[in-house]
């Protein structure tokens, strides 16, 4: 049994080409937008928006991490996290269009995303709409 588990991956590696890298996770784009909005909101003094978009980024990243196939023994890929610098000359006027774009971006995934992800993605879309209303 030990021998089998040790040699089987080698045999596969010798006879088949390496598998193609998995397609990018569509939720990764939502994470990027959420982090960027959080940075913008922080820079322009909108703490409620910053907090909500940070939570969005965390929950979405947790789902991306959960779904990412891992090679046993490989180190955990750094989840390109941490601080995102807000664009230079960030203004409060940029916040609402950014949130509207994020709402649309998440909303467009709702029709096709897997059943276990759709609730999260839909709540992020509706949450962005709620943030826009809160800022109005």
């Amino acid at each position, binding site marked *: 049994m030990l021998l089998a588990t040790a040699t089987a991956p080698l045999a596969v590696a010798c006879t088949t080409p390496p598998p193609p890298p998995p397609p990018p996770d569509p939720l990764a784009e939502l994470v990027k937008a959420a982090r960027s909005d959080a940075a913008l909101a922080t820079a322009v003094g909108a703490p*409620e*928006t910053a*907090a*909500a978009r940070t*939570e*969005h980024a965390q*929950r979405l990243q947790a789902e991306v991490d959960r779904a990412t196939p891992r090679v046993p023994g490989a180190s955990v890929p750094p989840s390109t996290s941490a601080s995102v610098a807000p664009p230079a000359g960030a203004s409060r006027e940029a916040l609402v269009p950014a949130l509207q774009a994020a*709402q649309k971006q998440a*909303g467009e995934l*709702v*029709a*096709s995303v897997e*059943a276990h992800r*759709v*609730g*999260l993605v*839909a*709540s*992020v*879309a*509706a*949450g962005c*709409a*709620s*943030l*826009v*209303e*809160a800022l109005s």
Partner: protein
Amino acid sequence: MSVEAVQDALAAEHAAVWTYGLVSAFIAVPQLSAAVADGATAHRARRDATERWLRDAGATPRPPAAAYLPPQPVDSAASAVAALIAVETDACVAWRGVLERTGDAALRTSALDALTVSAVRATRWRKVAGVTPTSIAFPGAGVG
């Protein structure tokens, strides 16, 4: 079972229509009365569309209850707004429930719309009530 989830969403819409009717007597500020009227119209339209969807799916839409119990008695503008926050929040939960139980793209699209507009109206009423945070980070998730 998406039919059962849609029946739950219909129940939430019935409750919303009933509650918007109930509170209208307690909200006298013109701007807020207009928002109450908008919400009532939107929930009636959503209720009718939801009943149509159920009939098209071969199901019998469940009728409304005779009355609904708000979280606290409605006897003032403040308690009226609290009742509206409650029904909009419940509608968010019900429509997210529909999303999680169907793979049908058209149903998902209309459920997302229902979730979104209820989240926006819940936020509007939270703002009127002075609830913080004003926004809801994950509408329909049952928390926050």
